[in-house]
């Protein structure tokens, strides 16, 4: 059945839905708490954080997530990270699950954390974050595995804290999603919304290349300042050897990125501060590429993105596994289109592009 908008408040069974959105902070905070959680029922949480650095220049500002505000030394981690060309790993005890980090005032950091919250075993979290973003410079990309060794207590809150005062600067935003599970409410058959569905990831664009290869594809009619967050899923089929990039508003200037890559047994990294788009895949020969890119697109600050890539795949050979953080150094213009671009005929038949919007 077709519906228009499905408005707030609504809870939809068996999907992911926003529990709470801090909005862009209008004053700096040291701590933000998501409370009244029921981790044993909710099972999983996803936290998205866009942090604007604050609290003093050259101050290490770790942003930690702590279940039930447990500040004892009950956390462990394993990181992989890359700063410029220097890739490294680090492990050990932590005072929380780190989701973001800033160093100087005004720097941006974007992180996404997936939490398995049910008690009975240690609680784990998988995190990606990109940090040290200013202008077209992306300082570091990282992935972390975390554990909290409390097996007994239900998670009833998630405390997000900066370890310097007022470290969650003006403009910072925290968004928590949970897996919805309800046992009452209206039973409905197929629901075909014609408008927005409150609080969920909603696919707003779906395109498969057919007939002949494309050199680019543009998703238009966007309202980035209202939408705030997009996720782009790209399964590329090679039409010609090419790198593939995202261009916001089809602007081919002022991008930067930091990449960490594994190519067979070679680990490498790179930082580029002047490029023409947010790189999200590529291939040679007749190969494939798969990527997922989280973008914070609201104006007011540089636009930042976090990508995971399966790059240049044929048969059972994957050329690269990559993590990427990218920035578009335009703070003013609303994003109204996203162009996926590369060389001539780079988007081969079978290429598939999906854009998802988190309805806030």
């Amino acid at each position, binding site marked *: 059945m077709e519906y228009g908008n499905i408005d707030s408040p609504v809870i939809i069974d068996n999907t992911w839905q926003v529990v709470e959105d801090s909005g862009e902070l209008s004053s700096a905070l040291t701590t933000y708490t998501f409370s009244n959680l029921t981790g044993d029922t909710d099972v999983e949480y996803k936290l998205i954080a866009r942090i604007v650095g604050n609290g003093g220049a050259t101050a290490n500002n770790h942003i930690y997530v702590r279940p039930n505000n447990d500040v004892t030394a009950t956390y462990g981690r394993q990181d992989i990270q890359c700063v410029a060309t220097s890739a490294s790993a*680090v492990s050990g005890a932590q005072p929380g699950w780190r989701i973001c980090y800033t160093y100087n005032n005004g720097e941006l950091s974007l992180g996404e954390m997936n939490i398995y919250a049910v008690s009975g075993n240690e609680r784990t979290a*998988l995190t990606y974050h990109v940090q040290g973003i200013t202008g077209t410079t992306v300082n570091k990309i990282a*992935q972390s595995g975390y554990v909290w060794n409390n097996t007994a207590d239900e998670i009833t809150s998630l405390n997000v804290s900066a370890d310097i005062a007022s470290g969650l600067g003006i403009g910072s935003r925290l968004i928590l999603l949970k897996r919805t599970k309800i046992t009452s*409410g209206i039973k409905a058959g197929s629901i*075909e919304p014609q408008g927005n569905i409150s609080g969920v990831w909603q696919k707003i664009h779906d395109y498969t290349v057919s007939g002949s290869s494309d050199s680019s594809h543009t998703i238009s009619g966007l309202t980035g300042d209202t939408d705030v967050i997009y996720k782009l899923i790209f399964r590329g089929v090679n039409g010609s050897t090419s790198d593939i990039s995202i261009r916001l508003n089809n602007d081919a200037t002022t991008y930067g990125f930091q990449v960490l890559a594994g190519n067979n047994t070679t680990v490498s990294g790179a930082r580029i501060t002047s490029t023409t788009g947010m790189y999200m895949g590529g291939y040679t020969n007749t190969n494939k590429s798969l990527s997922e890119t989280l973008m914070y697109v609201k104006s007011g600050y540089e636009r930042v993105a976090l990508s995971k890539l399966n790059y240049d795949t044929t048969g059972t050979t994957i050329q690269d596994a990559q993590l990427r953080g990218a920035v578009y150094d335009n703070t003013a213009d609303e994003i109204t289109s996203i162009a996926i671009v590369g060389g001539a005929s780079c988007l081969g038949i079978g290429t598939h592009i999906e854009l998802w919007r988190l309805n806030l």
Partner: protein
Amino acid sequence: MRFGEIRPQIGITDTWELVEETTVTGSAITTFTFSNLTGDTDEVYRMVVFGVNGYSGTAWIAIRPNNDSGSNYGDQYLRGAGASITSARATSETRFVMANSSATALGNIINAEMILYAKSGYVRTAIISGLGNTTGTTVSDVSPRGQSWNNTGDEITSLVVTSNQTGGIGVGSYLALYRKVV
């Protein structure tokens, strides 16, 4: 339009929908199958694996589309373990690998998330992120990885989560599969 609570019995177009979830209770299992899938229609799946080792020794947990256990999978990973960062490629794996370090003892944990482009016609590609062999405050490794299944023809009708050891998917393990509703 306002609803309050909605329990879609078929799905809401253009959203993610839980296909099935299971939490292992009672006794450990070796295999769990997400069946009756229509990969060519659904196109994209997401899976969450929280694996608690139910075997008294080292055991891995992996995923096989259509229960294909042939050497038809590729894997390229980055791995951080302690202060060591490495990468490697395998071209004849027998499964989608969830984490580098298998759980080495009863009760140890692995946790992974996979996004799978499932539609036939081309080699199937996946991105997996996992942490391996975790206990107490120690996470043995973390690994982002690109993977492939070189079958281009068969529609994915099942995703089998399996362990190499009897009872390797222990009590407390949680498996969840999401699909894109089209």
